[in-house]
């Protein structure tokens, strides 16, 4: 199932929204819903197969968390802008020095 179909279901969207706050065990997730634990497990399996969440065993519990790929776009922007602003501020400094040559001596 592709991610779009995976999130077409409101219960699965609710699971994703709960996981945006913190990783949760399958039992803890099931506690947020009226449906049976097997029904919740089924939704979790769909989200897992769509590549939207990770499932990790921790002690006796299975924990779900959001798959970090979604961070990539944001991370790329942060890396991009860090470099971008440093270049632009250097341009600004050059422009200021050019427009106000007297202040330039202290540089």
């Amino acid at each position, binding site marked *: 199932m592709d991610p779009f179909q995976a999130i077409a279901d409101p219960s699965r969207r609710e699971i994703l929204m709960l996981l945006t706050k913190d990783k949760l065990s399958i039992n803890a997730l099931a506690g947020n819903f009226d449906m049976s634990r097997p029904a919740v497990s089924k939704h979790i399996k769909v989200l897992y197969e769509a590549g939207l969440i990770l499932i990790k065993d921790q002690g006796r519990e299975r924990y779900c968390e959001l798959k970090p790929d979604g961070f990539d776009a944001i991370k790329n922007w942060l890396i991009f802008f860090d470099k971008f602003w440093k270049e632009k501020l250097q341009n600004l*400094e050059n422009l200021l020095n050019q427009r106000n040559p007297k202040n330039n001596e202290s540089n």
Partner: protein
Amino acid sequence: MQRDIVIKWHFAHPPEKVWECLTTSDLVSQWLMKNDFKPIVGHKFNFYTKPMPKMGFDGIVYCQVLEIIPNQKLVYTWKGGPEPGITRLDTLLTWTLIPEADGTRLILEHSGFMGWKNYLTSIFMESGWKKKIIRRFGQVLSEIK
């Protein structure tokens, strides 16, 4: 996860001179990007640069001036996306000038990189969009019959 960019820079020029370069459209276009900025709270303006399709950016930054304290502080929104009407990057720029004995300290804060919240919003939006297309497709098909 890091959510903001903060860059500090020292200029050997008084705040008034730095402010002039931050708030005069022609000057801003010389060191930053082409723009139609005006130093008026509420003014909506754009920056224009090269598109970056891989980043989902069409080359237009949509901005609105939120705060102006002459020679001290300038705040505007900084939004962009793959095409007009779709915002993937919804951020805020804050320029703060602090006078120093030998010039000005500039603090640039680029904030609002929200991580998962933006990501989920965008996939939910796309899912809505896809459903609409499928529905329209179904309508077209039934009309052909």
